[in-house]
């Protein structure tokens, strides 16, 4: 009996154990890993990824998938950066744009994400195109639109630089100084995670999301407007990608049309490793956070102890497969 309980505990919490073992293994190799600087760096690296992954989780829990997230991040980064350059920078995207309040381009970028999310939702819910295909299409389209925008004269596809300090401060600034400081973007990510937790657990939209992913017919019979809920969910996901794009531009102090490339796969990988089921109906905010942290720990920790980056890729891939192979055992139907 005790063995059974241990087994069930292990399979329920496998993801957190993996995270723990990884940190322990790295720390044993190099004890300097246990430092506040390292912890902050890992959190800093995770911040925007958490926001993207939470957006992806919304869609995955409805039994959908979103391939367009990375390109939305890229487009939002380019839009916000193009409007927030310092006045005397040599090659400005909009040479005559005055100093506008910080929040206008940020809000605009988030709204663009929301709009593309709505389009995704509309294609999926109203035209019944499978989410994989719908978002594959919009992924390519958004990259196209972003590249046209990026190649407008006078910019002509030059990387956008010279961002305003009040903007970059958002990405690199922190509360407090030195060792005991907390970067703004980490705070933003924590706030987003808290809000998403409330949406998942305390709102009608969240419960409907789980119901739609868990058994769409039960949802319909219970009088839930499935297509409207899907529309909202894809739109919220889009807005989160928009926010993440803004923060990426602020953090790196620039943007190109290739920003966000392949982020969609990182986001989906973090979700599934964190226990979100691609079959729908299952997933928690805590799981997604753990999933993102695992990949950040791998990235940062393995570099820290000097593992060859190509080997890191192999380890990452193996973790995705093994985590899901374990996870799926919980749900495999017997006959």
């Amino acid at each position: 009996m005790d063995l059974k309980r241990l087994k069930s505990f292990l399979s329920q919490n496998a993801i957190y154990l993996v995270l723990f073992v990884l940190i322990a293994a790295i720390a044993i190799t190099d004890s300097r890993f246990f430092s506040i600087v390292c912890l902050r760096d890992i959190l800093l690296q995770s911040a925007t990824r958490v926001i993207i992954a939470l957006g992806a989780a919304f869609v995955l829990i409805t039994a959908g998938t979103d391939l367009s997230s990375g390109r939305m991040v890229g487009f939002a980064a380019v839009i916000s950066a193009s409007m927030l350059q310092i006045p005397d920078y040599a090659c400005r995207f909009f040479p005559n744009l005055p100093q506008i309040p910080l929040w206008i381009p940020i809000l605009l970028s988030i709204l663009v994400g929301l709009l593309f999310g709505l389009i995704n939702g509309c294609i999926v819910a109203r035209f019944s195109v499978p989410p994989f295909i719908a978002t594959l299409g919009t992924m390519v389209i958004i990259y196209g639109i972003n590249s046209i925008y990026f190649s407008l004269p006078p910019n002509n596809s030059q990387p956008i630089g010279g961002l305003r300090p009040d903007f970059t401060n958002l990405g690199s600034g922190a509360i407090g100084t030195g060792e005991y400081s907390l970067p703004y973007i980490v705070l933003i990510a924590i706030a987003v995670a808290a809000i998403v937790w409330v949406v998942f657990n305390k709102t009608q939209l969240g419960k409907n999301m789980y119901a739609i992913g868990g058994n769409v017919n039960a949802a319909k019979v219970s009088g839930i407007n499935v297509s409207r809920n899907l529309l909202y969910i894809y739109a919220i996901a889009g807005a989160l990608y928009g926010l993440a794009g803004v923060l990426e531009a602020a953090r790196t102090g620039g943007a190109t049309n290739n920003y966000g490339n392949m982020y969609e796969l990182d986001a989906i990988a973090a979700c599934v490793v964190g226990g979100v089921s691609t079959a729908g109906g299952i997933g928690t905010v805590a799981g997604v956070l753990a999933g993102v942290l695992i990949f950040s720990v791998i990235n940062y920790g393995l570099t820290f102890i000097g593992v060859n980056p190509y080997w890191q890729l192999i380890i990452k891939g193996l973790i995705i497969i093994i985590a899901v192979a374990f996870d799926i055992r919980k749900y495999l139907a017997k006959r």
Partner: protein
Amino acid sequence: MSEFLLEMRQITKEFPGVKALDQVDLKVRPGTVHALMGENGAGKSTLMKCLFGIYKPDEGEIYLNGQKVVINNSKDALQYGISMIHQELHPVPHRNVMENMWLGRFPLKKFGPFSLIDDQKMYQDTQQLFQSLQMDLEPKTIVGSMSVSKVQAMEIAKAVSYNAKVIVMDEPTSSLTENEVEHLFQIINEMKRRGVAVIYISHKMEEILQISDEVTIMRDGKYIGTWAASELTTDLIIARMVGRDLTNRYPERTNQPGKTVLRVEHLSSSFEKSFQDVSFELRQGEILGVGGLVGAQRTELIEALFGLRSIASGNIYLNDQLVKIKSPVTAIKHKLALLTEERRVTGVFPMLSVMENTVIANLYRYIKPYKLLDEKKRKEDAASSIARLRVKTPSINTLIKDLSGGNQQKVLFARWLLTEPEILLLDEPTRGIDVGAKFEIYSIIAELAKQGKSIIMISSEMPELLGMSDRIMVMCEGRLSGVVDGRVATQEEIIRLATRFMS
């Protein structure tokens, strides 16, 4: 106020080639349990689907409290206070009880400008409801981890919370233990006290006589009559369910059963609720019918013979050789063939041609050097075998989905005959096939038996079992309840065996 809570008058529903309902009446009084009875295929489910707006009746009217209503979908039905507890329940498995109960109408509370879900109210309302119904359920249990009986209780509570006036229960006791049935009956009595009308569909005679006030019997899509349960006995019900003239015709059979080819000893499934301790023999050139009600585990048994389901204990002998069949690949090697019940789900490849569908189980025979397939031979074999079975198709390149059900079934016969089987397992071989094509399928089965093939045929149609089988084995709740001689058996005998172990 009308005497009846629900009246369905003169409901007629026709499907291509079948009159599923022919002027059927159902009149249910408030605060009573009304049993709806009939053999498989008598039209009970179709009638209930008309009540729920899943099907639109061609003729007839529905009245609630004397008011005429039109029900277009299940949401309408819920709004009129009609709920259904399905045989296969459909909750959201990963979420908890209270979320399933209030799905689509969660209680909300204001939190500044936002509406958040009022977990506390939801919990209390659920608790209260369970208490008033004396159900032992915990609102926060994850539904997927609960027993069928608890999920069922939850669904009943959900129906009550919708203020249901009419609750339909389709085979509610099919997967319950005796104690659970007792508890269900307590709940049903509580429903009666509240003035709810319960439409109760079941095959279990004693249960029906115990719980119901009135019984309506249907046969072949027709309304036979409604009686007070107190006037009925098991024998009377069976006689009224069966009493039909045999209009179906069967081909003459000249097969001669020979030596035993298959012997099954004490076969038990790994799952408690499935088949247990089944032993039987099959002889060469014999047609062995398998009778029983839905849920008797007949499909599970023959799928286990074909290696599709796991076996806990027992032995299978083919020609006196002990064999272990762990997968369909081994089964085919042992010269077994299986025509599944759900032709569309596990039989045809709808988007492939008749030719591809015919040779698919046999591709290894056509491999030429370099792993290429011998196109010419494939076409020849497909063409000759579908000609032999008289499949009506424009060409062998027609997509199989464009053929009628009967012709699709013949293609499946052709597919399996190409593997040159000795034993054919047929699961409801004429389901969904119109009457004319049925005769052709029967002729094929009779001809195969004459050639010395051995056949196990599951059928829920009584005349078909009696008309086609040399012997009939009858199952009930996973156990073998008897074997009868097909030439002298009667429908009454089979129904009695099919309900033998039921409480």
